């Protein structure tokens, strides 16, 4: 890179870049705080013992990943609907970024769940409705990403992707209820006045604080990943446009 280009690059570092940098730094600090809090600060669960007691700590990551996945898929639903209404490619990029980030977090949710389930349920896998729905969601969105790659025209890719994302999201409630009527053993942790709810109100102070840190840290992580991915997709589209102009 020439000196002139580097100067221009530095000059372009505006307020948004500084804000994004600050967000990224905050994310790193919050995730470090979460690692400390979930492993050391939070007191062990008194009603559990042995492996189960250790495995319980993975819940802080499990819940955090779940927040990220849910946020990503809600962004994707919003993005696909708004794209189909306005045809603004920024919303399609938001859909794609939301699905990519959400899929990573969804995989994180499933993997942490698998590690927790072996000592607690004595099995890695079960067809519990939440597990089924989470897995099907991840598969749906992996299919979405594969499908997008097979379409060359930029507008068609955005339109077909949005249509599929819409169908994918709408099938999830039915997937959940159909799997729920098969069977369920997943603990209902936070569920208002649900009589099946376990925990929640019985959490110790350090555990509640750690959960709070996890929620903040994963929200920050989701936001910074989402924004960076969205910017990269935007720059990629811009690069493709410029390449077409040259050719």
């Amino acid at each position, binding site marked *: 890179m020439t000196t002139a280009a580097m100067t221009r690059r530095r000059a372009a570092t505006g307020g948004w870049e500084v804000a994004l940098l600050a967000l990224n730094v905050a994310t790193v600090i919050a995730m470090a705080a979460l690692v400390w809090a979930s492993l050391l600060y939070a007191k062990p669960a008194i009603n559990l013992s042995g492996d189960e007691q250790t495995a319980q700590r993975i819940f802080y990551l499990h819940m955090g990943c779940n927040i990220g996945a849910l946020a990503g898929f809600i962004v994707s639903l919003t993005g696909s609907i708004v794209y189909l209404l306005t045809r603004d490619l920024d919303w399609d990029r938001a859909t794609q970024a939301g699905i990519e980030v959400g899929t990573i977090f969804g995989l994180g949710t499933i993997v942490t769940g698998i590690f927790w389930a072996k000592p607690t349920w004595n099995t890695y896998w079960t067809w519990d409705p939440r597990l089924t729905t989470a897995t099907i969601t991840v598969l749906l969105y992996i299919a979405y990403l594969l499908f997008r790659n097979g379409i060359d025209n930029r507008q068609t890719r955005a339109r*077909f992707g949005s249509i599929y994302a819409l169908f994918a999201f*709408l099938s999830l409630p039915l997937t959940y*209820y159909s799997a729920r*009527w*098969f069977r369920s053993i997943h603990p209902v942790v936070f569920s208002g006045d649900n009589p099946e709810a376990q925990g929640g109100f019985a959490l110790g102070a350090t555990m509640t604080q750690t959960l709070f840190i996890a929620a903040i840290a994963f929200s920050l992580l989701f936001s910074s990943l989402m924004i960076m991915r969205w910017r990269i997709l935007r720059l990629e589209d811009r690069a493709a446009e410029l390449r077409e102009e040259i050719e």
Partner: protein
Amino acid sequence: MTLTAPSHNPPLSGPQTDLQPASMRTEGGWRAYLRKVAAIAAKDLRAEARAKENLSAMIAFSVLAVVVFGLAFDLRVPRADMVAPGVLWVVLLFAGVLGLNRVFGAEVDRGSLSALLLAPVDRSAIYFGKVIAQMAFMLAMEAFVVPIVLVIFDVNLFSPWILAGLLLGTLGYVSVGTLFAALTASTRARETMLPILLLPVMVPIFVAGVGLTANILDGREFTEFGRWFLILAVYDLVFITIAFLIFDLIWEDA
């Protein structure tokens, strides 16, 4: 009448101002609409009756699949009715993909897709015509699969409730499958893409179908298995409505 205009005369550039594609697509009310749907469906059924390539492949594959499952489960499964519901619905899902790939794939291969899209009908009429034709293929295939399951697994699926569940499940499967077939028809690697897109969206149909069939084979009452019909009916209603609304968007630039 506008419908008899010769095809080499482009309607938009000619002096005949009454040849407006928009009015040709919508005029005539719902009776004309139903006639257009029937015409599209009849076209596909006639093409299939002459070529006999689509349905024969679906039937051959589904019969083969039931036989292979029967062999695979023979040693380890004590009672065949434990796996028969799963086998039935897996075979229908997989064999259905073979047919769905040809719904628009055949039009693309023959180069007749643009002609079909030029037809003076609403795009949703094309969709419903294709759904009806595909429903006919699927039901014809099921008419082979159900007796084969009876022979191979000795499980009798000829109960009115199971057949009603098959009808509702097939309708949901075909209505979403036809829309996805339209999405994948003009993309690269459409034959491999369609099942990857379709199967995760089909989970409610699959689970409800298996649950329903298993409950009826176990001799449960309607109060117990009625909820599976609820899932199937809601699925059909929601997705047919959305497909009807959204189908116009697929070829808007074609």
